[in-house]
């Protein structure tokens, strides 16, 4: 009872704060049209590469035939300018481009939030010169999984997380933590040392999970993996406990302490993150690495689906009237992109899109109901491969050619990261209903392990011309741009 009231009050304060902010920004956007582009994706979905390629294409004039404003020559130029938020680090665009083009490696996984502002000078179709400001935010994908916590109480979260840990394969991953948690009584008086030990084991368990499963996405709370300056603070010293069947947690008990810390985590970490970066978006692109999940088998696919569903619950989408725009901005265009589409031949892109569409069905329907425009594409922000055909019976195998990243591939082959290889990654299932059941949950026997294999390639080699770096090759980045900001450049 008491808890419910405090929750509502803090929610109201939060809403009011967002409304006030939106009001201030509305005023400013009248003077300087601004688009806040949300680039959303779980870790390793390709957020950093997408932003880098997008900015590079805008600033250096990429090959964007489908992006009307650029291909018809209405964009006079785009430049990077200082960002509005002084407290947020700048997106290290120059370093990422250098890594991509010179070292031919993908940028490291993002460790902290960063921001970049691009100003586009363009001429509107009616002939007047205008500018559009594009704000883009990059953040570690792990943090995204914190968003669902906003809607869960500590008790719910504990139950779900423990259930998830018990299901884990291999069981040794979670064994130390589960053994410890059995010794902690939620009703006993608070014991700080037991809490620290529980948090340590829980964190270790999360880290191990992330190492073992490449695509494991249920790693909330994300800040446990990248604590930053919050390391050791009470807000990061909690763990799920076995809750009593019924009854209130007595004051001063282990359980109450954990609950207070969980709430603190939400208030100190999750809420500001949501407020700063998700509640204020005008346009949203959700990057999903479907291919890696398909390559990982049904468990990985299910994992991805669960995570995406939970995250997409939190989004504000929909087209509002002016009053809405004043007080609670919502993303009015939502683009789902299956990234790394260069890992399959273009003839498989339609199937890839169909799979992603099926995975995000619920979110698409909700966004559509709210009046937002939704699209689904297969995308490669930086295209690392070219296409080829391996002759053989039945018309041959539509394959892709590129330099595979060092490591081992299918058939136990090892790649040295220097020689080009041609890869046929396997056929994507033509019938999406074979992958998912009617409720949208992935089926166990959908895509047998080993029938599809996604391989990481190194970024493409580019020859330098006299005027610097030529544009990065891509697949449908221009279509994404056209969808996301094309209408603001008319």
């Amino acid at each position, binding site marked *: 009872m008491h808890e419910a009231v405090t929750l509502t009050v803090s929610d109201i304060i939060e809403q009011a704060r967002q409304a006030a902010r939106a009001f201030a920004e509305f005023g400013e956007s009248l003077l300087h049209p601004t688009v806040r582009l949300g680039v959303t994706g779980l870790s390793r979905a390709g957020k950093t590469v997408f932003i880098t390629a997008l900015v590079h294409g805008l600033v250096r004039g990429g090959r964007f035939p*489908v992006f009307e404003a650029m291909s018809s020559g209405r964009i006079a130029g785009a430049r990077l300018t200082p960002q509005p938020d002084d407290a947020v680090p700048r997106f290290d665009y120059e370093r990422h481009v250098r890594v991509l083009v010179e070292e031919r490696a993908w940028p490291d996984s993002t460790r902290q939030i960063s921001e970049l502002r691009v100003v586009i000078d363009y001429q509107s179709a009616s002939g007047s010169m205008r500018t559009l400001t594009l704000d883009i935010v990059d953040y570690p994908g792990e943090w995204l999984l914190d968003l669902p916590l906003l809607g869960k109480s500590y008790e719910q979260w504990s139950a779900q997380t423990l259930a998830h840990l018990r299901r884990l394969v291999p069981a040794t991953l979670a064994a130390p933590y589960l053994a410890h948690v059995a010794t902690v009584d939620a009703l006993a008086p608070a014991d700080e040392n037991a809490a620290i030990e529980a948090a340590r084991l829980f964190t270790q368990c999360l880290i191990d999970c992330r190492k073992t499963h490449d695509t494991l996405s249920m790693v909330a709370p994300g800040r446990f993996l990248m604590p930053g300056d919050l390391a050791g603070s009470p807000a990061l010293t909690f763990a799920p406990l076995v809750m009593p069947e019924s009854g209130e947690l007595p004051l001063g008990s282990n359980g109450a302490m954990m609950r207070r810390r969980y709430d603190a985590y939400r208030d100190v970490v999750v809420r500001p993150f949501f407020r700063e970066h998700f509640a204020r978006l005008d346009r949203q692109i959700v990057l999903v690495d479907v291919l890696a999940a398909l390559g990982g088998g049904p468990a990985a696919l299910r994992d991805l689906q669960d995570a995406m569903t939970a995250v997409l619950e939190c989004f504000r989408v929909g087209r509002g009237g002016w009053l809405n725009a004043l007080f609670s901005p919502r993303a009015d265009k939502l683009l789902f992109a299956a990234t790394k589409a260069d890992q399959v031949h273009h003839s498989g892109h339609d199937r890839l899109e169909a799979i992603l569409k099926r995975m995000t069905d619920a979110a698409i329907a909700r966004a559509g109901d709210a009046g937002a425009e939704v699209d689904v594409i297969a995308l490669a922000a930086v295209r690392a491969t070219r296409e080829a055909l391996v*002759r053989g019976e039945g018309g041959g195998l539509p394959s892709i050619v590129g330099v595979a990243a060092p490591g081992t591939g299918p058939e136990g082959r090892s790649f040295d990261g220097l*020689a080009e290889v041609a890869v046929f990654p396997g056929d994507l299932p033509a019938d999406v209903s074979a992958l998912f059941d009617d409720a949208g949950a992935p089926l166990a026997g959908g895509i047998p392990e080993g029938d599809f294999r996604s391989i990481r390639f190194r970024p493409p080699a580019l020859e330098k011309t006299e005027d610097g770096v030529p544009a990065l090759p891509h697949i449908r980045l221009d279509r994404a741009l056209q969808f996301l900001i094309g209408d603001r450049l008319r």
Partner: protein
Amino acid sequence: MTGTVRRPAVFSADDPRLVAVEADEAQRHAAQIEADAVDAADQLPAVQAAPKRRVPWASMFWSALSGLVVLGLGLAVSKLVEDLFARAPWLGAIGLALAVIAGLALLVLILREVIGLARLATVEALRRRATEIVISDDRNDGRALVADMLSLTKRMPVLARARARLAEHRSDIIDGRDLIRLAERELMTPLDAEARRLVVAASKRVSVVTAISPRAAVDMIFVLVNGLRLVRQIAVLYGARPGTLGVLKLLRQVISHLAVTGGIGLSDSLLQQVIGHGLATRLSARLGEGMVNGLLTARLGLLTIDQVRPLPFQELPRPALGDLAGTLMRSTSGRGDSAGAPGKNAAP
């Protein structure tokens, strides 16, 4: 291979079975274009018959009648030649030669008309395909259509650069809908501008001639001739190059559209027409009539654009009577003011 699972496989880049896809595909596409063009020409009658009608008594009547007329003519000519031979052999020889020349010329004329009609139908088929691709978003169809568009426009020097730009993107991975939009933007922009100019020029001519012509019959004939000319010009501009029959057919389509859409079109531009007409009539009754005829010609031109443009209006704005009417009225009023100074040229 179908039915069985194709397992993932890795090949080294110097595997002899590996073929680069771009060049190969481009060639296949080129071959495909030729095949498609031939197919399109072959399939035209079938395509035309697609909307199934009941027994076409009217056309049967006309076909039978014209067959009879041709037979009668042939009979008359052969009789004439025979008579000439009977009178004097050299006269008969000349008659025969003339008859052969006339027959040959007729044959060529018919052939040209048929080709013109086929071209018109090709453009129609292209537009229908483009509309389908916009809905289906099919990549392969889109590529084939772009190839067809490139071959359709290959005799238009204005589009050389646009064609080069478009050809450059053909090997990129772009979806069907975007390909159509891209092709429209690249290829149709200059043609649309030119078509708009033609329509405005024709309607201006009609307004002016109507305003100063001495007799109603004269401007009726002028409106008709000018309309025919406009239809032909626009069709040629968009690559349809129809013959005389083609133009007539087009005109028939346009006029039937005019009858259908006239009511709709009326509502959006009735106001400005009434106001414009009213104002102009105040100035002079003839000027008002000229304006109405001019607007009619403009509408005819716009409908013709709709009929012969090989791509549907997706990305670019459809020219509306409103934008044209503005230019037209300004120029006509200007002319009305300077009616006493005929030396002033109306052409832009």
